[in-house]
Each structure stands twice: as structure tokens, then as C-alpha cells.
């Protein structure tokens, strides 16, 4: 299963076999789709590539991309995190609730809380061996109840003096800062995934869990890390979202659950685990965000976009799922 270890591909390339060619295809097709999409929409409506439109795109795409990158990490291990949209929603609510206590540090506290929460649910899933979809569906229900409860189901204005929110909502060099935040996140995670043991262990876990376990990968700890990273990213995405709207709403990110999963699979990360990675997450996030723009261009009602994304997700999963690894498909 050499396509699951991108690092080794260069050495094998001397004699490309079927699996290697498939892996190369898997990496290049999403990028080609992205370029095609951007090109097509530029032909239909040339205005989409103007600086102002691109800036609008960046502030629209950054939260989604952060969310997709976060969701990629548990999916790489073969698990799935359905709670990311719930965490992104509750972030804004927590910001309002905790601001009187922590003052300027509220954002940091909220992100740390999210990371702790993610680590806890990852541990719960791995240590108690509860399927990840039901664990995170359970926490999603709890989070949405909690955010409705804490906010009394109303949208509230953010405390206007929060330094991090103001920074995220601002622009530098005329480009929204949320774009830079997404870039910084990618850089940090890229270093972790490429140069630390954690990164390689994540792929090992996704490619073959029993083998990984036998080779000394600490699976429970690693899963906790994966879910902590995904929750941390979700919280950051939540901050980026509220920095644009300046309002916290308990159902802010409700529709982002599907988009985050769609982004992951469109980038070429297989739902079966072990295949894909950070780069795939970045491309997938960009494709999804651009699709949102493109569907509006074609004239699909914003609410009707669900159909497009649902079908895209089904096609991408059909193409990327590694059926030999799952055996019996449930």
C-alpha cells in the first residue's frame, strides 16, 4: 500500500506501477479540478478574479479551509469528527460568555478549551473504543444544546475590545488577516506532519492500525492528538467566522458540517484513512470555497448548494475510497 506513504514515493518512482500512478493521479486531479474551476468561473464572470473579489473570497474561504484542514487529521487515521461545526459555533458563544472573566485573553482560553475538549473526545473514542462517528455525533448534540443554552438562542454582539478578534477581522497589505492565519496554521501543521513522529504515526495508524500498534505507535494518545488538532482548528475557524460578522450566533456554523467533510474528500483524502494529507486538505478547502462562489455564479440558490455539495461528496468518496482495506463495507 505504497500510496499511503507519500514520503517513500520518490524512491519508487524509477519504475512506476499501478499503485504509484494511482497515487500520483490522486494528488494531481484535485489541483487540476481547482484550476479548471477557477478558470471556468473567470471565463463566465471575469470580475471574479479582481482584487476586491479575491479578498472577499479569502475571507469567505479562510474559515472553511481551516475547518477542512482540521477535519483532515482524524480522517487520516480512519476516524471521523462530526463535531467540528458544533465547536466552531460554540466558539463565538464562549467568547461572549467568557469575555468578562478573561478580558484580552479570551480567544486564547477558548482555543485551549476547544483543544482540551477535542483531546477528551479523542481519548473517549480511542480508549473506550466507541465508534468515532457516534462519539462526535453525541458531542455535536451536546455542543449545540450548550451553545443554545449559553446564548439563550440569540445572536449577541462580540465584545468590541478583543485584540485577537480585531486582528483577525483586520487586513494587512489589503488582504484579510484570516488568510494569513490559515497560512500560519498550514505552516505549523506542515512542520508537525513532516518532521515529527506524530505525522508519520498518523499515516501509519490510518494505513494499518494493528501493524501500527504492534510497532509501538501509541494509538490512544495519537487519536487524542488528532481530535485535539481538529477541535483546535475548528475553534480557530469559529474565531475567523465571528471576526467577519462581529456577532456570535449559536447556529453560526451549522451548515459547515457537510462542507468540511466535502472539502476533505474533494482534496483526495480517503475516508478509509491513511491516504491524503495536509496538502490535500488545503486544495480541498479551496475547491469547496470556490465551488460556493461558482454555484452562485451559475445561479444556484444558496440553499440549493447543498445538492451540489452532497453530490460532489458522493462522487469524491466513490473515487477515493480504498475498498480493499475496508473489506466488508458497512
Amino acid at each position, binding site marked *: 500500500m505504497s500510496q499511503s506513504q507519500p514520503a517513500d514515493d520518490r524512491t519508487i518512482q524509477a519504475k512506476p506501477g499501478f499503485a504509484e500512478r494511482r497515487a500520483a493521479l490522486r494528488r494531481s486531479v484535485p489541483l487540476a479540478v481547482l484550476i479548471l474551476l477557477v478558470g471556468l468561473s473567470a471565463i463566465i464572470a471575469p470580475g471574479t478574479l479582481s482584487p476586491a473579489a479575491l479578498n472577499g473570497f479569502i475571507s469567505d474561504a479562510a474559515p472553511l479551509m481551516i475547518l477542512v484542514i482540521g477535519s483532515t487529521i482524524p480522517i487520516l487515521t480512519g476516524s471521523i469528527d462530526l463535531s467540528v461545526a458544533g465547536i466552531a459555533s460554540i466558539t463565538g458563544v464562549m467568547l461572549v460568555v467568557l469575555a468578562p472573566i478573561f478580558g484580552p485573553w479570551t480567544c486564547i482560553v477558548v482555543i485551549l478549551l476547544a483543544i482540551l475538549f477535542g483531546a477528551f473526545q479523542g481519548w473517549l473514542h480511542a480508549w473506550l473504543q466507541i465508534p468515532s462517528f457516534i462519539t462526535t455525533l453525541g458531542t455535536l448534540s451536546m455542543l449545540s444544546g450548550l451553545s443554545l*443554552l449559553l446564548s439563550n438562542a440569540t445572536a449577541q454582539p462580540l465584545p468590541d475590545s478583543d485584540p485577537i478578534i480585531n486582528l483577525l477581522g483586520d487586513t494587512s497589505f489589503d488582504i484579510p488577516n484570516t488568510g494569513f492565519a490559515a497560512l500560519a496554521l498550514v505552516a505549523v501543521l506542515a512542520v508537525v506532519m513532516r518532521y515529527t513522529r506524530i505525522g508519520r504515526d498518523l499515516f501509519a495508524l490510518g494505513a494499518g492500525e494493528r501493524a501500527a500498534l504492534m510497532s509501538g505507535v501509541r494509538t490512544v494518545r495519537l487519536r487524542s492528538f488528532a481530535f485535539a488538532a481538529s477541535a483546535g482548528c475548528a475553534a480557530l475557524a469559529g474565531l475567523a467566522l465571528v471576526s467577519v460578522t462581529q456577532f456570535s450566533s449559536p447556529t453560526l456554523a451549522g451548515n459547515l458540517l457537510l462542507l468540511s467533510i466535502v472539502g476533505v474528500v474533494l482534496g483526495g483524502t480517503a475516508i478509509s484513512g491513511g491516504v491524503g494529507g495536509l496538502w490535500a486538505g488545503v486544495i480541498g478547502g479551496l475547491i469547496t470555497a470556490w465551488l460556493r462562489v461558482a454555484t452562485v455564479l451559475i445561479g444556484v440558490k444558496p440553499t440549493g448548494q447543498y445538492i451540489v455539495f*452532497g453530490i460532489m461528496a*458522493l462522487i469524491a468518496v466513490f473515487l477515493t475510497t480504498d475498498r480493499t482495506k475496508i473489506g466488508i463495507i458497512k
Partner: protein
Amino acid sequence: MKLISATVAVRSAREPDGGVAQHLRRWLQSLGPLAVLIVLLLVFEIARHNFLTGGNLAAIAESAAVPVILTTGLSFVILLGAIDLSMEGVMAASSMTLSLLCANDVNGNHWGVWGIAAAIGVGLAFGLVNGVLNTILRMPSLIVTLGTWFIGLGIASILFPAQVPTVRDPWVLGIAAYHIAGLSLIVFVALLLLLLFHLLLHYTHLGRMIFAVGGAEATLVMTGLPVPLFKIAAFVISGLLAGIAGVLLSARLGDGNANIGDGLLFPAVSACVLGGTLLSGGRGGVLQSAIGAVVLEVLNNGLIQIGAGPYVRNIISGAVILLVVAASGLHLRRKLRVVK
């Protein structure tokens, strides 16, 4: 039934801790949910004193009717070891279909009973698509039904006209308005469906095969039986019942609504697990799941009566399901067991 007991026997042979613990667990799994239901009823009666009145019990029956229908359908899929997340989308699509085809205040359609049939047909079609994608195209049911969930929501919102379509059809409105012995027809429809699908599950070939797929799918494939057909049938049943639930909810509300199923998926999954229908498949049944659904509704009703807000329900049912899934799978924990 022989096949089921065979798979159960294989399972218990694999488990080292037989004897008393085994019996206790089996007993807890079958009678536990019912005991929980009785304890809850008694606790709330002691706390509020007017809990076990006819009026309140009727209210619980009314609110439990649709969840019972949903869990009945979902149980078939969960018994396979698969999952169906699409019900909220299916209900949205079926509700919009119903309200636009029956007599309404938006367009001139007057399909009457055929409108109800079309709405249920939408649910059936969704189930069929889910089943085909899962079995023929070999995609995990989790992600297939996540996709169709949102496709259903999308279809509902595209169908949605400029204003909320109010249903004017006497047939449809009659389902919710006509009462027998203080209970609306919705409750009786739910009971009828529960009975029907209980019989289907336990006294037909298809029902036995669904248990068998959940117990040992690999073995069943080797026997040469048309396993994909059984699996598609389970998904179709789930879609069908979600479609019916969409119709009943629209009848109760009196209009078509794309958000009609919001927040019903998770309690339905919880109810199945709570009632003893294992997510790993092969064990449980529609009656157990229905008891789970009633337990959740009693809990909900009781919590509101003792003054907890409506949002606490989400938190409690989330916590309950995590506890129950953890407890029911605890004995299966192994160092090398892979759970994704």
C-alpha cells in the same frame, strides 16, 4: 432464528467471561430499557405528582409517535451494522413534496391521497439510492447517507416557494386532527407501523437475513444469498418510514417545512442504542428501539416539567448515548481491537 442463535453462540464462545456476568448482561440488555422507563416514570411522578395523569401520558404518546416511526426504520439499518444519517433530509424533501402536491395555498395542485403517496415515494427513493450506493457502488453508509441528508435538505429548499406552503387538504390535516380515545391518528399509525415491521423483522425471511447480515456478513456472502438485496431492503425501509414521518409531521404542523426534521436524527440514533440495538449490528429489534424512543420522550417531558429548558435535552441525550454506547461495548474492549 437458528442463524441468529448460531452467531450469538459464536460470539459468546469468543468471550472469555461467560457465566453469571454473561447472563446478567443479556438480562440487562433485554429488560434494562424497560426498567429504565418504569424508574423514570416513577421518579418524575414522585417529583411532580401529576406526571402519570392521562393528559400527560397522552402528550408523551403524541410526542413519541414520530420518533418511534423513525427508530423503527433506523433499526433495520443499524441491525445490518450500517447507519442511516439521511432522515432529516428525507423528511424535509417529503414534507415539501406533500405540501406542494396536496391542496395548498401556493399552487393549484390537488392530488389528495396521491400527494401523500408521492411524499412517501420520495422517502422510498432516497432509501433506494442510499442502499444502491452502499451495496452496488460499495461506499460506506456513513458518508453516503451524510451526502443524501444534505441533498434532501437542498431539494426541499429548492422546492420551497416564496412563502411557506400551508396545507389545506382535509385528508392530510385529518391525520393529526382526528382523535380516537384522546389520541390522534398519528399515534395509531405509529403503533401499526411498529407492529407491522416487528412482524416483518421476526417472522419473515428478510427479517432473519437482516439479523444475519449484522451478525456475520462475510459468512452470509459465502453462502451465495443475495446479500446486497437484503441491505438495500433495509435502507428502503428506513427511507420509507422517514418519508412517512415527514408526512405525519407536516400534517401536525399544517405546512411544508424544510427544517421539519431538524434535531430528530440524533435522538433516533440514541433511542436505538438506548433500547439495546447495538451499532455493531445483529442484535436488538424494533420493539427495543421503540422503548428507547419512549424513554427519551419521557425524559424530555419530565425535564421540561421540572423546569429544565428545551436545550438541556440535546445535552442530556448526547451524554446518555455516550454512556450507553460506552457501557454496551465495554466488555468488547481489546488491546488490538480496531474501532474507527
